[in-house]
C-alpha cells in the first residue's frame, strides 16, 4: 500500500475509533434498553421540547445536575441527586446545554408548578426578575379581543405591557406547549433540602 493510501486509511480509522467509543458504545450501553415504565413522552410536552430547541433555550439553560464534588447544583436545590442516563432515555432531543445564564431546568417542573408563573416569565421576564438578561418571548403570545370575561389563561398586565381596552393577551399554542414541556421536566425527585431559586 502506498503512503497516501496508508495516511487516508489511518484518518478513516482514527475517525472510526472516535465514532466507536463515543457514539456506538454509548448507544449500546446508555441508550434505551427497554421501554421506560412511564412510556415515551407524548402530546403537547413533545411539541414544547421542539419549541425549547427551536428558540435556543439551551444557549442559556442546562438540563444536567452535577454531583456535589463537581458543582453546587444539588446545594442550590436544582435536583436531589446527580442526573442519570435513564432520565433521558426516551428523548430525541437531549438539551444538556452549554452555558448557564439562567438556572438549570432539569427539574424545573418540580420547583415551579404554576403555568401562569411561566407565562408571565416568558412574556416579560423583567417583571419576575428585574434586570435579567432573559429575552421576552412575547411573540409566542397573541392579543385577542376581550369578549365578556377574560380567558382563564389571559395574562394580567399593567402599565406599558397592558393591551388596549377591549383586548387581552393569551398564550399562543407554542407558548402553551413550551410551558407544558417545562412542567414535564421532573427528571430528579426533589429532596427535602431542596431550595427554590
Amino acid at each position, binding site marked *: 500500500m502506498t503512503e497516501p493510501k496508508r495516511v487516508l486509511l489511518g484518518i478513516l480509522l482514527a475517525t472510526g475509533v472516535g465514532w466507536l467509543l463515543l457514539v456506538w458504545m454509548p448507544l449500546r450501553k446508555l441508550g434505551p434498553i427497554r421501554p421506560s415504565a412511564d412510556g415515551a413522552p407524548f402530546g403537547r410536552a413533545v411539541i414544547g421540547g421542539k419549541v425549547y430547541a427551536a428558540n435556543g433555550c439551551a444557549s442559556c439553560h442546562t438540563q444536567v445536575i452535577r454531583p456535589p464534588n463537581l*458543582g453546587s447544583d444539588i446545594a442550590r436545590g436544582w435536583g436531589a441527586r446527580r442526573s442519570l442516563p435513564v432520565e433521558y432515555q426516551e428523548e430525541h432531543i437531549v438539551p444538556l446545554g452549554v452555558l448557564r445564564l439562567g438556572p438549570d431546568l432539569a427539574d424545573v417542573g418540580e420547583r415551579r408548578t404554576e403555568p401562569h408563573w411561566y407565562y408571565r416569565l416568558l412574556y416579560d421576564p423583567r417583571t419576575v426578575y428585574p434586570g435579567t438578561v432573559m429575552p421576552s418571548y412575547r411573540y409566542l403570545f397573541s392579543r385577542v379581543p376581550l369578549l365578556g370575561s377574560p380567558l382563564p389563561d389571559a395574562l394580567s398586565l399593567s402599565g406599558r405591557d397592558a393591551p388596549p381596552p377591549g383586548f387581552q393577551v393569551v398564550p399562543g399554542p407554542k407558548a402553551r406547549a413550551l410551558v407544558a414541556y417545562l412542567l414535564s421536566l421532573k427528571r430528579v425527585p426533589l429532596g427535602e433540602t431542596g431550595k427554590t431559586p
Partner: protein
Amino acid sequence: MANMSESEEAPVMTAASEAGSSLRGPFLWLLGPATVWLWVATILALLGSLKLVDPRFLGAWGWLTFGRISPAAFLSFVYGFGVPVGLSAALWAVTKGGRLPLLGRRWCLATSFLWNVGLWGGITGVLAGESRSLSWLGLPTFSLPSLGLAYLLSAGWLVAALVSQWEKTSLASRFLLLGLVWIPWAGGAAALMLHDPAVRGVAVGSLEWWFNDGLLYAGLGAFALGIVYLLVPVSLGRPVAFSGLGRIAFWAWALFANLAGTAHLVGGPFPLWMVSLGVSSRFLLWVAAVAVGVGFWVAARGGAAEKGDWDPSWHFLRFGMSSLLVAAGLGALLALPAWSRYVHYTVLEEAQLILFLYGFLGMTFFSLLYTLLPRVLGRPWPSPTLAKAHFLLSSYGISFLVGLLAAGGLFQGVGLDDPDLPIHEVIVSLLPFLRSAAAPATALLAAHAVFGLHLLWLVVESGSSRRVEEEAALAGSAREGVRTP
C-alpha cells in the same frame, strides 16, 4: 511543500500570477460568498452581544431572539466562512500555489452554488425556528442534502488530487486530507444517526459532542494547520522545523480530535471512562499543538518576515498560532474536574471557543487569503494601511473579547459555586463584562468590513487591469490581421 526553500519559492510567485486567470473564477466563487458569510456571522454576533446589553432590543421578532441568532452566528462563521476557506486551501495545495492547471473548475462552481443555497436555507431555518439546538449539528434537515452534495463534489476530486500528487515530506497535505475526509465522514454519520428514531437518550449528547470537537479540531483545525504548513515556507523562506515531530503531532491530532468532545460532559450523566477519555484527549491535543508550535517558532526565529516589510499574511499567521497554543491549553485546563467545578457552563468556556474560532481559525484563514488572492488576481493588495487596520482591529477585538469573557467567567464560576448566592445575582454581577464585550465585538465587525472593502477594491482593480490587457491584446492581434472573436 513543507520543505520548500527560499530559492524554490521565488519562481512560484511569478508562475502563480501567470496562472491567476485560470484560478480566478473558482477561488472567487468560493471566497466571495465566504466573505459575505463572515459579515453575516459578525453582524449576528454583534446583535447577540447588544441583546445582552438590553434584552428588549429588537425583542418583538422571534427570528431575532438571542437563542436563534447566537447559534446562527456561529454556524454562519463555521460553515459559511470556515469550510469554503478550508476547501480553498486544499485547492491552493493541489494546484501547487497556482502553478498547475485546474481541472475541476465546474465542480467548484457547482460546489459554491449548492453550498451557499443550502446554507442560506439552513441559516434562515435556524432564524425561523427550525433548529434542533444541536450546536454544530444545528442546521435544519432540509439544508443537509444540498450541503452534503456540495461538499462531496469538491472534496472528492480534491482528495483524489492530493493522493495522486502526494509529497512524502508534506505535512500540509496530511492535515488538509484530514480536514477534507473528516467532515463528510463524521457529518454524514451524525446526520444519518440523528434521523434514526432508535437513536435517543444521552447517546445523542455524546454524538453531538463527538461531532462538535471533531469539527473544530479534526475538520477546520486540520485545515488551519495545513495552511500553517503551506504558508510558513512562503512567508519565511524556510519550512516549519522538526518535521518528524510534526508527523507525530499529525497522528496525535487525527486521533485525539475524535475523542476530545466528551471533555465537555464532565459531571453529566455519562460513565467516568468517557469523560476521562475526553479530558486526557484535550491534553494530548494541546501537546500536539505545542509540537507544531515549537517547529513554527523555531522557523520564525530570524525568518525573512521579521526583517522585511510589514507582511499581513505573516502577522495573521503568527497571531493564529499563538491563539492555538493558548486556546488548546485553556481547553485542556478547563476540562480538569478541579477547574470544571468552577468554570463549566460559564462564559470562560465561551472565551476559549471564541479564541479558537476567531483567534486561531479566523486569523489563520485570513493569512491564507492575504497570500492567495493577490496571486490569483494578479495584483498586490491595494492598500497596506487597510491590511494593517484589519489586523489591528481583529487582534485587539479578539484579545479584549476573550479577556472580558474570561474575567467575567471567573466571577460567574465563583458565584455559581456559592449555593447561597441566587443565580439571578450571579448573572447580574456578570453583566458589566457581557455589556463591555459589545465594544470589541464592534471592533471585529469593523475589521471584517475593512477586509471586505479591501477585497472588493482588489477585485475591481484586477478586473479593470484584466480588461486593459485584453483590449491591448485584441488591438495587437487585429493589427496583425488575425481574425478576432
